[in-house]
């Protein structure tokens, strides 16, 4: 156990050192204009971001983007789980649904956005793309996870005369939970990316809108500040997902 703690501490120190090194390098490149004027110093971005006059702006934009991402994540997860359960109970539907999902996923979201624009209000395009991105990851994780149960567990359920519904709810879904949680972890970032791409197509507010407007008006610090918010938020959710994953794997396997 002590050896394990030691390893964990060492890897935390290495990780922290890596982050500090990265930020120092960022600062150095920005200060000395090594990569030109479009690479600002880290401290400039941070002071721009935490300027009290812009609090409202960043808050509104973040709330808008994150609620689109959250809505898309929730809806995509729901659709992914329901569809995966459906094709699991009716395997005849599986190959077609697999192919349709892969096809939709292989079309770049940026190409689909204008089509979504025709069907949903401008401010929902982000959520629609976030939904699609989350759906695909959750669907793939769930369809493979639902076949996770071991043969001996399936035998026990057969011998005990379990119905299809019981087999799904009491065996296959719980057995699928670990890979599904891993999928959810990746679906969060995919949903955030989807929301931002969607916002490029005429949303009224959001981090994606800030990015586009900063690019068009050459506001380098604003651009980097928006990207920094997105990165930090994604990393926080990824970290939470990793914690949830650890807990679920310990309990469900």
């Amino acid at each position, binding site marked *: 156990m002590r050896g394990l703690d030691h390893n964990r501490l060492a890897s935390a120190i290495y990780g922290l050192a890596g982050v500090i090194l990265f930020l120092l390098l960022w600062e150095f490149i920005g200060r000395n204009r090594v990569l030109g004027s479009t690479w600002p110093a880290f401290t400039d971005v941070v002071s721009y971001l935490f300027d009290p006059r812009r609090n409202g702006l960043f808050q509104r934009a973040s709330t808008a983007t994150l609620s689109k991402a959250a809505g898309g994540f929730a809806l995509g997860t729901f659709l992914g789980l329901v569809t995966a359960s459906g094709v699991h109970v009716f395997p005849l539907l599986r190959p077609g649904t697999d192919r349709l999902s892969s096809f939709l996923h292989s079309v770049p979201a940026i190409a689909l956005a204008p089509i979504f624009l025709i069907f949903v209000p401008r401010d929902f395009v982000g959520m629609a793309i976030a939904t699609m991105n989350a759906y695909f990851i959750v669907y793939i994780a769930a369809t493979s996870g639902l076949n996770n149960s071991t043969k001996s567990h399936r035998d*026990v359920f057969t011998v*005990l*005369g379990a119905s299809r519904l019981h087999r799904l709810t009491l065996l296959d879904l*719980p057995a699928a939970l670990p890979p599904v949680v891993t999928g959810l972890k990746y679906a969060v970032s995919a949903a955030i990316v989807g929301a931002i791409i969607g916002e490029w197509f005429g949303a009224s507010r959001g981090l994606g809108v800030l990015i586009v407007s900063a690019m068009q008006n050459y506001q380098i610090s604003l651009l980097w500040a928006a990207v920094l918010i997105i990165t930090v938020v994604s990393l926080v959710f990824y970290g939470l997902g990793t914690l949830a994953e650890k807990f679920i794997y310990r309990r469900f396997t």
Partner: protein
Amino acid sequence: MLDSTNQTETAIDIEAVSRVFRLNNGKDLTALDRIDLKIKEGEFVALLGPSGCGKSTMLRLVAALDTPSSGSISIEGSDPRDLARDHRLGVAFQDHALLPWLTIRANIGLPYRLAGRKTDDARVASLIELVGLKGFEDSRPSQLSGGMRQRASIARALVLQPDVLLLDEPFGALDAVTRRHMNVELQRIWGENKITTLLVTHSVDEALFLADRVIVMSARPGRIFKEMQIPFARPRAPEVQREARFHELVDELTLALEPEGH
């Protein structure tokens, strides 16, 4: 449940059952060759044989996990499938097959949920006590030892008071000492229920100590070539295993298991 006056009635009727597997190379493997076996109500029968003799296949056929290539199996006059569907079958495998995300109590109560019945908490509690897992109700399988998991698995098999109990090497993965101990426990538990039981094992001692009748099978093709009524009275104390008569029977069965010509 049938009343105890019907002790001599046939519970499991296996008639001319064969099971042929088609191998990848296109050849056929006869795992079971025209097996005839009748098991009486409340009888404990052990299927003994070397690995690959088809004894597990036999058990899977009775458990309705597989279907015979020819011949028929009926349990209390109906198809094994009906017995499973009516939740009247109890099974414990070598792999305990407890659900890792449920507590021991929930695992043992699982058959109630699958039968769509309200869990009888008192029954679950009494079985937990019977198999000696009191105090571990809220533990998860991963927190228990191998022997404790097998006991939980046997409790789960018994909880609905099944008409037929099928045991496939339930202690096969345990060490010799734990295994002997578990056999003593199983003998005691079985004595309190007297359920028609089919045990598959390759351990001569286990078969002799637990069963009323031992069926010895030979491999390729799987056939019955010896039957033995076990004379020891019940309940059987562990000391039975040290009697001279026990050792004689062990020798006889061990000899029977030797490949021909030895």
